[in-house]
């Protein structure tokens, strides 16, 4: 042992009486750096529980758990992320991907517990000392994104190319565009609950990414037998809740659906969908109306082995999809593609057959095991203002039907359309096209009770109508139609400032000091449609329960008070195509269940 070793303990002891060089409480004196990645914080009011943080976590440190007081509803799963600090490595990927921007890391980095199980908590729910800490890691702004905030632009025909023709105006995605757009999807599946048909949206978008469009088509047909149609004109409620819409543009779900359907040729459908041979079960179903609900019911019933006959009043199938929606939005050949596949499953469509006239509903009921009715809303409603009984006042729905049928529709150089919904925009834009073809210019004005911000029509419909030289002037209540020498001179309107009263009832209020006069020689009313249930005899009506608004009551399987009669589509729910499709699908399952139970109860003879 050296001399130094002998003395060194004493020199150490001497230090005890000196002022220490270390500080006593280093932690509180040393906060994490401003952008330190410490413990999680989550604003649970802006979080929608999409689970993307859980998916990206490399360490499986995040669980999605229900939280008391957070409701599961459209656009919010009701779940919130819970972090297990036994696994978290503070890489911050969960913050960087967070679609809502609700998740962040604070710069707090000390946390002492005796029980290791406590190192697991739901940020924003379980209170922590760092809940109000502002410093820490946040997603860097701008231009630091794991996915593109903007959708791939859909190309449209220019107004000058389209405003005098009925050629389809939306061009559709190319392979490259579709795959790029599909790549934005984070696969959270929040959209599925909101889609009335609960389509497997993340799954079919994944099929696009994998360039497996046959798989994509199979996923579409699981829940929707009209993908070409829905891929064009669906009301796409799914896109309103898409989590990408939280900080950017929602995914173009509708156009991606169209891409899958467009890319699969119709002659391959039966092979792809494995529907070449369907075993018949010997039971017959009658379906009234070949609109979305009827076609959907027929499709799923045919797959189950039922022999389906659709009774259609008009000469072509499709209902409102063909006779209500203009060709420039939904070309007829695309309707035919979807319908001819359904026909190829053995579904028979009897055209020009009006139930209640050519054959009674009772007869259908006797000759078939069950009946599904989806007759839709095809009766135009009138404003019933003074002058609305004039012969040059038309219903939009009648004119749209005549345009599809190829009939010559009445036309003047100055037309007034009353209504602010999508049907009003459809007739305005259709008539503007016809005016351009006949007179070389459009002269049409659409007016609605609702002000611009409250118009029920899709925003793009209004903008596109204006691009096509139609005038849209909303916020006016029609008062009377001016008629002189039996000719329409125009429409008197008053400013409308309120639509509903305090109780939420429809009760428009007008400012009679602000009056306007729109000149025109023809008026089209487009304020909504009603149902025509004249095919129900008085005897049958007695056996059905009908509510105050004239709707027939059905159960969750769309079965009416008459057990063999099922109803769906616009007469029950909607109005829109996707609800019709969902209703038809559910009714098909309901019919199958009903007939299965019935057979069980019938003694064998």
């Amino acid at each position, binding site marked *: 042992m050296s001399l130094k070793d002998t003395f060194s303990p004493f020199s150490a002891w001497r230090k005890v009486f000196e002022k220490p060089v270390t500080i006593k409480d280093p932690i509180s004196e040393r906060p994490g750096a401003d952008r330190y990645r410490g413990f999680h914080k989550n604003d649970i009011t802006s979080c929608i529980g999409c689970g993307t943080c*859980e998916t990206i976590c490399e360490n499986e440190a995040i*669980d999605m758990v229900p939280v008391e007081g957070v409701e*599961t509803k459209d656009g919010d*799963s009701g779940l919130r992320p819970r972090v297990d600090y036994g696994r978290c490595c503070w890489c911050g990927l969960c913050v960087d991907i967070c679609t809502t921007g609700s998740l962040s890391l604070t710069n707090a980095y000390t946390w002492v517990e005796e029980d290791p199980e406590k190192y697991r908590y739901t940020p924003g729910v379980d209170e922590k000392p760092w809940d109000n800490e502002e410093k820490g890691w946040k997603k860097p702004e701008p231009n630091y994104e794991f996915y593109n905030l903007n959708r791939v632009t859909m190309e449209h025909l220019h107004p000058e190319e389209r405003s005098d023709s009925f050629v389809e105006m939306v061009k559709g995605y190319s392979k490259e565009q579709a795959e790029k757009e599909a790549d934005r999807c984070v696969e959270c599946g929040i959209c599925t*609950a909101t889609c009335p048909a609960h389509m497997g949206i993340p799954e079919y978008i994944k099929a696009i990414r994998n360039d497996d469009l046959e798989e994509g088509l199979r996923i579409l047909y699981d829940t929707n037998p009209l993908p070409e149609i829905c891929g064009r004109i669906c009301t796409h409620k799914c896109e309103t809740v898409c989590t990408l819409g939280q900080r950017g543009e929602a995914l173009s779900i509708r156009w991606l659906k169209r891409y899958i359907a467009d890319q699969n040729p119709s002659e391959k459908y039966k092979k792809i969908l494995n529907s070449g041979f369907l075993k018949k079960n010997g039971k017959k179903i009658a379906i009234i109306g070949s609109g979305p609900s009827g076609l959907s019911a027929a499709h799923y019933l045919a797959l189950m082995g039922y022999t389906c006959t659709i009774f259609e009043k008009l000469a072509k199938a499709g209902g409102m999809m063909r006779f209500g929606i203009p060709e420039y939005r939904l070309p007829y050949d695309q309707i035919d593609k979807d319908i001819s596949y359904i026909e190829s499953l053995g579904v028979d469509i009897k055209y020009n057959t009006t139930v209640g006239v050519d054959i009674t509903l009772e007869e259908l009921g006797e000759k078939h095991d069950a009946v599904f009715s989806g007759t839709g809303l095809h009766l135009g409603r009138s404003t019933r203002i003074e002058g609305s009984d004039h012969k040059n006042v038309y219903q939009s729905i009648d004119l749209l039907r005549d345009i599809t049928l190829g009939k010559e529709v009445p036309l003047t150089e100055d037309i007034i359309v009353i209504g602010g919904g999508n049907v009003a925009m459809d007739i305005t834009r259709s008539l503007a096209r016809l005016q351009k073809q006949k007179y070389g210019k459009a002269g049409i004005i659409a007016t609605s009770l609702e002000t611009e911000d409250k118009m029920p029509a899709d925003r793009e419909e209004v903008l596109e109508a204006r691009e096509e030289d139609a005038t849209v002037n909303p916020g006016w209540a029609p008062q009377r139609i001016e008629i002189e020498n039996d000719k329409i001179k125009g429409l008197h309107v008053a400013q409308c400032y309120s639509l509903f009263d305090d109780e939420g009832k429809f009760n428009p209020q007008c400012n009679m000091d602000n009056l306007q006069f729109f000149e025109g020689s023809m008026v089209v009313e487009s304020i909504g449609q009603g149902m025509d249930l004249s095919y129900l005899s008085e005897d049958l009506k007695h056996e059905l329960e009908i509510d105050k608004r004239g709707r027939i009551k059905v159960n*969750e399987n769309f079965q009416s008070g008459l057990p063999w009669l099922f109803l769906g589509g616009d007469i029950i729910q909607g109005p829109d195509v996707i609800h019709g499709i969902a209703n038809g699908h559910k009714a098909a399952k309901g019919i199958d269940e009903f007939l299965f139970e019935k057979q069980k109860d019938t003694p064998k003879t």
Partner: protein
Amino acid sequence: MKEIIDHLKKRFPVYEIGEGPNGVILMSVEAAKLVPMLTSLKTNHGYGILVILSAVDWLEDCKFQLTYIINNPDEKRDLGIRVFIKREDAEMESIHSLWEHAATFQREIKEMFGINFPGSPRVDEPFLLEGWDNLPPMRRDFDTKQYSEDTYFPRPGRETNDPAEYMKQKLYPDE
């Protein structure tokens, strides 16, 4: 600064000269010319301090990037030199003879990325990962999640829900 860059340009094959965060000048050089260049910067231009040595895995390009940040204390200026080396059997000349503490950086990079620095003191000894028997963990082909699943037992009390499936149960269980 311009003089040094011009000087370096004349003597070494530098390229991609640009400015990084906080005004640091960054440039790339062929790997074979790195040590002579660092030696020149240290001995002739006052860049006496090695601040950090770090690596990036460019998996798709089959390359590793090494970045050497050096500092001139008199001018209070940083300079970043990048080199790219092939990813397969990755190897780089050691700079421990220029800066002794570079051996520690190199030992860490060997462990985390698997880049070898022949001759660097203690380069094969574990730095943080005692008993590690897997791919170097900072390589991008190392599957962190798979490693977690294989190595650690699931903690009791963990349960999760798929958002879409949970919404179905809550909102439309019968459809």
